[in-house]
């Protein structure tokens, strides 16, 4: 029965076009990687493609190692050396580009230094590292916690009223738990891949919403509901086959897209750096995860988000018998936070927990979304993922029962 249900969804032109569109989207996102990864060569010109990517890899590999006193000092010295060159001080764009090109190998470390030596937690000055003549490993890591503490307890700051004392302590504790020194390695494959994984996930939600909207409404659209519901299993096994087909479709489409997207990036840009902590990119993240773990969190959360949206679409369609209502569900889920956001603090906090959180899980690793449950402070992702999964499980019987009791005039 599941096979037939899938044929009903994917057989019509609309289904094929939707799936083709999603495949094209994934391919486009993969192609964008090839063309967005730039290398500035010795002549100050931009290069793209596999050659540029190899040069970036070689340049960053030269800086592989623990981000300790020795490596940080070496970065500062090299940065100073480059800053002292005529190219770095030239007002000519090409000359400036040449100087920029020399910094590409250690650019991520330079960004970390900017973060660590910023004036305040929310500040970022691209030239901070250029002003440093020496660096101390201890202050490099301590500053991260010091700036956070200042920000959390600054009575005039934005964080002061936003977090409870328990939440502040939780964030500080997580910061303290980060193992130092961080290890730096070439990690562009993971970084670039994760950066846009949420986009693939969000497109998936829209496309799957369109496909799944028909699963419980096609019978009445095609006037096949009379025969369907009068058949032996029309209100039992066949109804459950619809739910199963929907879940299978979400699972196969989502994981196929994400695995193709992930594998393309990693095969093209390299698997190296998977064990590097995400703090080498998100220095202020409270999540002590490496890139492989961040990838797993992103993929699983994205799946739960898609599954939730898919099941909600099926639930709405089964109850309302309207595919139009169903199709709007993912659109509402995706755009509601941006439409309603900024009206009130309480609403913003509520919208922070909307399913979009699951789709942009990787970006949320850089934020402080916390939830207090029975006095225990937990990251929003750690609460929302199981909660949405539980809602998914609750939607299944609701959808099934709604459809099986349907009466057709």
């Amino acid at each position: 029965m599941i096979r037939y249900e899938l044929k009903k969804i994917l057989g019509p032109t609309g289904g094929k076009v939707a799936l083709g569109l999603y495949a094209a989207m994934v391919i486009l996102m993969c192609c964008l990687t090839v063309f967005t990864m730039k290398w500035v060569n010795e002549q100050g010109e931009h290069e793209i493609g596999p050659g540029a990517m190899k040069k970036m890899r070689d340049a960053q590999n030269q800086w592989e190692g623990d981000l300790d006193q020795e490596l940080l000092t070496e970065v500062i010295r090299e940065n100073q050396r480059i800053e002292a060159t005529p190219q770095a001080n030239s007002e000519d764009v090409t000359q400036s580009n040449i100087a920029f090109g020399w910094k590409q190998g250690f650019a991520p470390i330079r960004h970390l230094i900017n973060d660590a030596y910023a004036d305040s937690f929310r500040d970022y000055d691209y030239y901070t590292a250029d002003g440093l003549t020496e660096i101390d490993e201890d202050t490099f890591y301590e500053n991260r916690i010091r700036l956070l503490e200042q920000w959390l307890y600054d009575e005039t700051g934005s964080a002061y009223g936003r977090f409870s004392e328990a939440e502040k302590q939780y964030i500080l504790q997580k910061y303290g738990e980060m193992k130092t020194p961080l290890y730096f390695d070439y990690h562009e494959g993971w970084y670039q891949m994760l950066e846009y994984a949420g986009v693939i996930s969000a497109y998936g939600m829209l496309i799957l919403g369109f496909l799944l909207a028909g699963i419980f409404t096609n019978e009445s659209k095609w006037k096949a509901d009379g025969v369907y519901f009068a058949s032996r299993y029309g209100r039992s096994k066949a109804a459950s086959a619809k739910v199963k087909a929907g879940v299978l479709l979400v699972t196969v489409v989502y994981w196929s897209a994400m695995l193709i997207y992930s594998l393309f990036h990693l095969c093209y840009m390299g698997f190296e750096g998977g064990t590097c902590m995400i703090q080498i990119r998100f220095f202020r993240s409270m999540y002590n995860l490496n890139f492989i773990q961040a990838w797993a969190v992103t993929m699983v959360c994205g799946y739960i988000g898609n599954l939730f949206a898919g099941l909600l679409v099926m639930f709405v369609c089964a109850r309302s018998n309207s595919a139009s209502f169903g199709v709007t569900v993912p659109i509402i889920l995706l755009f509601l936070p941006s439409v309603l956001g900024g009206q009130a603090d309480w609403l913003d906090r509520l919208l922070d927990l909307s399913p979009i959180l699951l789709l942009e899980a990787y970006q949320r690793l850089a934020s402080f979304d916390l939830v207090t449950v029975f006095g225990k402070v937990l990251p929003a992702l750690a609460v929302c993922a199981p909660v949405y999964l539980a809602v998914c499980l609750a939607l299944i019987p609701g959808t099934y029962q709604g459809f099986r009791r349907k009466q057709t005039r």
Partner: protein
Amino acid sequence: MELKISHLSKQFGSNHAVDDVSYTLRGGVYGLLGVNGAGKTTLMRMLTTLIRPTVGSITWDGEDIFRMDENYRKRLGYLPQDYGAYPEFTVQEYLSYIATLKGIRPAAARKKVGQVLEQVGLQKARNKKMKTLSGGMKRRAGIAQAILNDPQILILDEPTAGLDPRERIHFRNLISELAQDRIVLLSTHIVSDVASIASQILLMKDGRFLSTGTVESLIAACPERPWQCTCTKAQAAALEKRYKVANVAAGPNGVVLRLLTAERPAADAVLKETTLEDVFLSCMGQRSGDDDDSL
């Protein structure tokens, strides 16, 4: 094998689509005749568990069909009036899918699909997509799916709609063959479709059974008789106002009228043999299907 309808009513808002109907169906072909809006489809939809009655019950061998759920539906074959199918499925795929819905095992389903395709004459179209079939072929596919599971109760709502005369004859023969050891309830407003094959006729109007019985008993009980007379146009106009007109034809000596009336309508009127169509017209009124069916 007894399908019993007891005080069955179905109300949609203020409209009584079926109004306190009671009847018992046993083996044989039952022809459900009525004008559009008489409640035939609503009654059939209740008999197929598609909608629940507002009042009353339907039992199969003493057990409520809604409680029996799939145990009842496994005995059921149904062709709805507004029948549609999955446009991207081939005829073979469609029937295989319906066989799965009916709980027929795959091996048996393959055999059965081949068999019903032959019965309805769709073997050559088995690989055609449903969306490419003509109206008549689609209807035949509908009949095929209804008989896939050898149902004990076969409910066919306007099965001959869209069929050409040859196909209708073929279909009537098929129903006659199928009528052995099962209940066939056939709704139509084409009287000739059921006149020759139905063992019982149920005449329905305004949600109620006006009259039930064999064709012969209905004819015998009909208070009006068909009279044929030939007259001028002016006389015909006057007669049409007074009597129910079963037929009007142009003859060599004037207008040939077939009138339904208990009395001789004109001195030269000749009494003709009463048909089921005459009974139908007599019961339903001349303008059958209109809101106002008065003469």
